[in-house]
């Protein structure tokens, strides 16, 4: 059984569908449904049409085209596209036009992908439900009263709502995997250091990774293969992940089954995920029990680490180079302080203040130093688990998508939504979410973690979860 994206790629390659037809299809869907979903910030209709026309002309002449040729791709609005707004869904950057493109954008364009729109997100990626955007909340296409997850909720919703073939998001503590789970699409956070962060407006630089959204494993793998690889402009992007041929076969693969993942999830969600794991066992994988006792500490370790880095990342927004200058310009400090306060949302201020507090000289040892040590223990625990298994499996999210506005303003309650996802960022391992069923018509995601560098195995296991097999007449582009 092939996949939606594979069929689209084959139809484009064979000429059954033109790039222009593909783009017009998505622009029509955006016109019809975006007002209800609010997944997008800017739509690049003219640019997308021009690029599609150019690709069709080259194909007609028999020229070679890239592996993403004709596919419509939506981009989270914290990834810079030259000449387009990069707002991070914040008032601070509402009128910021990127003077350069991120490496991932250059690689998509070099592969002839067509960037169709920028996507809504939680402000500066601070959130798990895309209701913290300074502009408007995004709605889950499966139930418009519910959240799509976050912070890359716009990107996930864009794929789920049929506004684009594929999308990019960024994942610092689960911000690709959470909305993938809630929107019923595939979302992946690659191994840290395999996808360039140059041009990604950072949240936590030791945690951030850009990752793909797709209706299926084939599409996620295709987009990832186009954007990954060492980049001299990102000093940490030095790794090439292992990317063996995708077969959809996982005989003999050991699935680590930590009870802690399930202890922290709603019983109905756990039951749906266990059904997905049974499917993987029927495909030839074996389950082994592993333990992750430090999981209960992962949220504090993650948030303390992230806030420390986030407060540093936010220092550059001063109302002078970025944002709006304040009127009170008696001194530089007054002017900057007021501009920042006027342009940042409440969650931004909270995280900046938390990160500043724990890194102050008098508090550093009590908080930040301990966080760094705890992070090493979390990383070591995951590495030990991987001595017994090839993949760790469990629910992506501990619950189903909540109603927009339902989650209380208790910050720790919000942060606990990341309990199953943030360890992967702390350890730098790849992790992905694939749909494994529905409860009350809402999608449930099954999450898999792999060892550092085993991104290919991860996409192969996602394909097995779908029951994917190479299409008999498929043109594998990678």
């Amino acid at each position: 059984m092939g996949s939606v994206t594979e069929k689209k790629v084959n139809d484009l390659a064979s000429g059954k569908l033109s790039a222009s037809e593909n783009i017009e299809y998505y622009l029509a869907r955006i016109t019809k449904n975006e007002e209800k979903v609010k997944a997008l910030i800017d739509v690049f209709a003219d640019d997308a049409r021009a690029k599609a026309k150019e690709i069709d002309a080259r194909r007609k002449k028999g020229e070679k085209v890239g592996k993403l040729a004709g596919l419509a791709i939506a981009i989270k609005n914290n990834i810079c596209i030259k000449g387009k707004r990069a707002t991070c869904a914040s008032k601070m950057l509402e009128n910021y036009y990127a003077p350069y493109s991120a490496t991932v954008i250059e690689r998509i364009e070099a592969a002839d992908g067509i960037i169709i729109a920028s996507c809504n997100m939680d402000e500066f990626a601070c959130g798990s439900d895309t209701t913290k955007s300074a502009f408007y909340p995004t709605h889950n296409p499966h139930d418009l009263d519910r959240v799509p997850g976050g912070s890359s909720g716009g990107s996930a919703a864009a794929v789920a709502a049929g506004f684009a073939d594929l999308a990019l998001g960024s994942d610092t503590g689960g911000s690709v995997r959470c909305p993938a789970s809630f929107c019923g699409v595939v979302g992946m956070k690659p191994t840290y250091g395999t996808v360039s962060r140059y041009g990604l407006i950072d949240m936590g630089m030791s945690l951030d990774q850009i990752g793909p959204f797709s209706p299926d494993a084939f599409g996620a793998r295709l987009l990832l293969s186009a954007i990954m690889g060492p980049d001299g402009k990102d000093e940490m992007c030095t790794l090439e992940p292992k990317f063996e041929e995708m077969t959809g076969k996982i005989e003999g693969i050991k699935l680590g089954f930590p009870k802690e993942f399930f202890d922290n999830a709603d019983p109905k969600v756990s039951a749906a995920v266990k059904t997905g794991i049974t499917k993987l066992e029927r495909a030839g994988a074996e389950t082994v029990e592993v333990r992750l006792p430090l999981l209960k500490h992962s949220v504090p370790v993650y948030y303390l680490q992230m806030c420390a880095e986030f407060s540093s990342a936010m220092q550059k927004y001063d109302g002078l180079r970025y944002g709006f200058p304040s009127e009170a310009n008696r001194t530089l400090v007054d002017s900057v302080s007021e501009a920042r306060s006027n342009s940042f949302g409440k969650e931004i201020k909270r995280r900046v203040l938390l990160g500043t507090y724990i890194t102050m000289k008098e508090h550093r040892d009590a908080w930040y130093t301990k966080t760094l040590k705890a992070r090493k223990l979390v990383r070591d625990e995951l590495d030990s688990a991987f001595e017994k298994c090839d993949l760790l499996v469990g629910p992506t999210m501990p619950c189903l998508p909540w109603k927009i506005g339902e989650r209380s303003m208790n910050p720790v309650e919000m942060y606990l939504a990341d309990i199953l996802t943030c360890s992967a960022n702390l350890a730098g391992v790849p992790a992905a979410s694939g749909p494994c069923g529905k409860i009350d018509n809402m999608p449930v995601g099954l999450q898999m973690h792999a060892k550092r560098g085993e991104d290919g195995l991860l996409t192969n296991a996602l394909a097995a979860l779908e029951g994917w097999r190479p299409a008999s007449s498929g043109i594998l582009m990678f």
Partner: protein
Amino acid sequence: MAEEKIDLTRVAEIARLKLSDEEKAVISKDLEGILGQFAQINAIEGLDKVEENDYVIDGANALREDVISECKNPDDITKLFTRKEGKFLVAPKSLD
């Protein structure tokens, strides 16, 4: 760890945020609640025996050749300045 009382005045000054008294009260309470719960990391066994880990992956940072090049698009950058004179960003004075 004893319950932390947080005076945001100094923290906000370092963070370059101007907060109203109401905001200070609300956010102080939030941070005290957050750190109260996050203090659980002190209970992690073996914490005192571990080195700090700043690095997610092993290996050294990638270096590139130190080659002089020109900025190709200075206008794209300066046109974003909120206040400017020519190619210069206008900022308030930093000293009284």
